[in-house]
């Protein structure tokens, strides 16, 4: 099993969700995140005082998938999140040893 994590632009979340649902993904975890990559942050002004904000808002999408599906799901997220502009984000996978469904106690692929 793999954990696919995408850190994406907040305004792409709805498209990513729809694309994942169309690809058969039945669950995901979404959380607010902040960070920066190659793009710079932005500047805010309060009563003439400038604040440079390095960390920009992002959304983190996490999906648990079987090993066989992982590469395709990464492509789905990349395809749906892409705008072509700087700051689009990253998607990565990491191996997962085991998964348990809390309601039934099932383990492994059966719990996905």
């Amino acid at each position, binding site marked *: 099993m793999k954990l696919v994590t995408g850190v994406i632009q907040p305004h792409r979340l709805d498209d990513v969700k729809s694309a994942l649902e169309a690809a058969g993904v039945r669950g995901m975890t979404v959380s607010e995140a902040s960070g920066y990559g190659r793009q710079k942050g932005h500047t805010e*002004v*309060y*009563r*003439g*005082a*400038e604040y440079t904000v390095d960390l920009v808002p992002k959304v983190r999408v996490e999906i648990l998938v079987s090993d066989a599906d992982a590469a395709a799901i990464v492509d789905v997220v990349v395809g749906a999140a892409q705008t072509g502009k700087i700051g689009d984000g990253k998607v990565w996978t990491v191996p997962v040893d085991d998964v348990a469904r809390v309601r039934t106690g099932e383990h492994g692929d059966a719990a996905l």
Partner: protein
Amino acid sequence: MELDTGATAWMLTSASLVLLMTPGLALFYGGMVRGKSVLNMMMMSFGAIAVTGVIYVLWGWSMSYGSDIGGIIGNPFDQFALQGAIYDEAGNFLIDDFGVPGIVGVGFQATFAIITVALISGAIADRVKFGTWMVFAGLWVTFAYFPMAHMVWGGGLLSGDGPFASIAAPIDFAGGTVVHINAGAAALVLALVVGKRKGFGTEPMRPHNLTLVMLGAALLWFGWFGFNGGSAFTADGFAGLAWVNTTTATAAAVIGWLVVEKLRDGSATSLGAASGVVAGLVAITPAAGSVSPFGSIFVGVIAGVLSAYAVGLKYKLGYDDSLDVVGVHLVAGLWGTLSIGFLATETGLFYGGGVNQLAVQAIIAVVAVVFSAVVTFVLAIILKPTLGWRVSEEAEVNGIDLAVHSESAYEGIQSGSVIKEVRA
């Protein structure tokens, strides 16, 4: 004098409007601080209501309007606890020259003292012991506010009965000197004595909730109609003139502030609009009864421009007036007081009145700054080694709300907890 129920109704309404300004100020200031200290900021306003609301009836009224001592203060024992200020000898309510019961005037004036104390708190946000603030509030209103109110409005040195009136009668319609210069000068002195917030100039200290700031500014504007309109002391044309001038000057100040921001910073901001509102309200306060609506546009727009530039002074000069009480209240208060010398429709320089009015306005402004600064400095220096001004560094960093009030304003990610003990 016969009871005038219309005037009385307006003055009770005005008093209520002015009292609303202080909770409005709590929102205005509360939104501008960081989320970890918003409750403390609001509590400083509510604390000012609590302390001043009690003190005013005990000795505040008497020190402001009691029998004169040296042109500086009224005798605090003259009408202590309002004895002799409510009923005449026959047991009927005393009625003032406008047909309004004296007790209504007491309430109206008490609300001015309350908001003035609360205004100062913006300069020392995020870092001050609440207990010290409460003690300071009581001392400051007694030794700085009441004397100033007496000097300007109670027949003292800076009033039409004082020595400077031989040049021209000083004009302070609703509190340019008593409220805004007084609070602004005190704010500057306190910011210097108390010292900077930890991280000032290096860490971001952004307003945590600009919607609260906008709401607070709106409530201040609404309440200010009582502040200025009520300062006519009756429901008449002066009240109407003050109402219109208050609106026009404030609108013009918003434009002034936003234009400066657009040209200097590239964006017209909501904080700038809210700040322009307050700068305009402050500046028109002393002038609301003596300038024309046309003149009030100049009072307002110049106030907006001056204050928009003045709020940057703290970074240049290195003092931490957290929420710009100096830049907004002192600067706009000084301009408003001086603007009368130029724009008063009967005595102003631009209306052929010569320089006398301008000179006397400058004199009362300077005396107000010096008096307020000296009294505040003495009180602040006494409190520093005794009660102490600053909370611990740990409390300041982790959030003064939790450290001082055992509360936090917003729910973060926290694990659940159980009630161990209910104190009843």
